[in-house]
């Protein structure tokens, strides 16, 4: 119990003293996971909405694949991304293993199925007649898509939260493809693992608290957007 208080105290002192290393780690976490989420939104919403609105043979197989992807284990992604990015691997020429960019790629791979799956469910849930109505009012296909996405905004923001939550809390892939390099690719989760290994439990707890705080703040903003839209 003492240890937890120690950790809270430590978190507080690290935050108020603006410890440059902790700030750097926090900012990198935000940057990597934020960018990865954004990429996943772009791909996820396009793919999710397209699959939701079209009918083709083997569609159920595709949908179950997407849904399985929502449970994609980060370490598995980490392993495959690492092997592909090895200097002597298929994508080795890019030379980006053990960089934040590699972490963004891995996290985007993890978040994309989550966003895709939720988008798919959200768009498909909209009443079918809505589409006819929109088209009847003379909207182009693209305009229709845009209106549908706006209609599904509540669920789509949930997709953003789920995707971001999935990657900011993820450690397996980040440590493998990022290497937990001090001052370069060390994020909150990988730093927590390392400090635990070093027996610095107070710092580990402090980092966890900062991570939770960060996740809360992001979700607070997103929820604000989500719920206000609803009242309108």
């Amino acid at each position: 119990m003492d240890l937890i208080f120690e950790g809270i105290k430590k978190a507080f002192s690290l935050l108020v003293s603006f410890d440059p290393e902790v700030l750097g780690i926090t900012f990198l976490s935000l940057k990597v996971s934020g960018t990865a989420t954004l990429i996943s939104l772009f791909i996820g919403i396009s793919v999710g909405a397209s699959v939701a609105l079209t009918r083709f043979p083997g569609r159920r197989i595709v949908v179950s694949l997407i849904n399985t992807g929502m449970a994609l284990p980060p370490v598995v992604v980490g392993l495959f991304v690492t092997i592909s990015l090895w200097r002597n691997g298929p994508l080795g020429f890019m030379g980006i293993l053990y960089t934040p960019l590699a972490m963004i790629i891995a996290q985007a791979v993890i978040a994309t199925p989550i966003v895709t799956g939720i988008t798919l469910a959200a768009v498909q849930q909209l009443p079918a007649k809505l589409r006819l109505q929109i088209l009847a009012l003379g909207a182009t296909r693209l305009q229709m898509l845009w209106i549908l996405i706006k209609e599904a905004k509540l669920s789509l923001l949930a997709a953003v939260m789920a995707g971001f939550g999935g990657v900011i809390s993820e450690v397996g892939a980040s440590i493998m493809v990022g290497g937990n390099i001090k001052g370069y690719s060390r994020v909150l989760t990988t730093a927590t693992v390392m400090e635990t290994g070093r027996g610095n439990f107070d710092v580990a707890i402090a980092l966890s608290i900062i991570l939770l705080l960060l996740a809360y703040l992001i979700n607070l903003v997103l929820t604000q957007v989500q719920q206000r839209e609803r009242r309108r």
Partner: protein
Amino acid sequence: MKKLYYALFIFLGILVLLAGSNSVAQAQEKTLILATTTSTQDTGLLDVLIPMFEKKTGYFVKTIAVGSGQAMTMGQKGEADVLLVHSPAAEKKFMEDGFGVSRRLVMHNDFILVGPAEDPAKIKGLKSAAEAFKKIASAQALFVSRGDNSGTHAKEKDVWKVAGVKYEGEKWYQQTGLGMGQTLNVAAEKKGYTLTDRGTYLALEKTLKLGILVEGDAVLLNVYHVMEVNPAKWPKANITAAKFFSDFMVSKETQDIIKTFGVDKYGSPLFFPDAGKKVEDLGK
């Protein structure tokens, strides 16, 4: 309302720009990939040495702290430029197979057998590690192994071999597959015995309820070597930087730092510098 929405997107957009701008891979010839064991990172030694090296040479070092086994596999696959490891038998094989171009002695400390104060197998003060392992086996007392092909794990298997008892698959023998620090925590929580390098143990001592039970046996010597990966096998290996790094590790300045590292915090050094010495002369 809309403002908040836009603010959020602008914020995320800025993140992307930032991420794009400074995560562009640094020029490859200016980076060095160092694959090393968890003990050099968990003790904090590299946190002191790496910034010094970077400042001196201008290289950017990517330190990947894994077990010695994995570090050497990275070297074999050409995914690392230089290795700082402690698994002598595997290192010799690495050199014989032509994966490395040089192997130099850097420092040593020793392995110690730690365990709970109750000491169910009654091994405290034994002079022989193999004897202690035998007693643990016959008492069926919990032994926590790294189980990850690290240097420590390799040493542990050597000692079991000398002890000549069956341990694999036994109920009292558990493998964590984790780094040294985490394995020590597991051993402390479960009141088990474990073999550890002294450096990591000292760094974690304050949080562990484990005491040193067996130490000083010649077989428990823990020797660290620095090895450069063979560029003939892997043209992408940064041999210039690797050479700089291994020279740096055995330079007088670095060796002096190793000599005093940890004295202020733990009262005794965590590593003993050995550059230029012969392995046979260590621990005498």
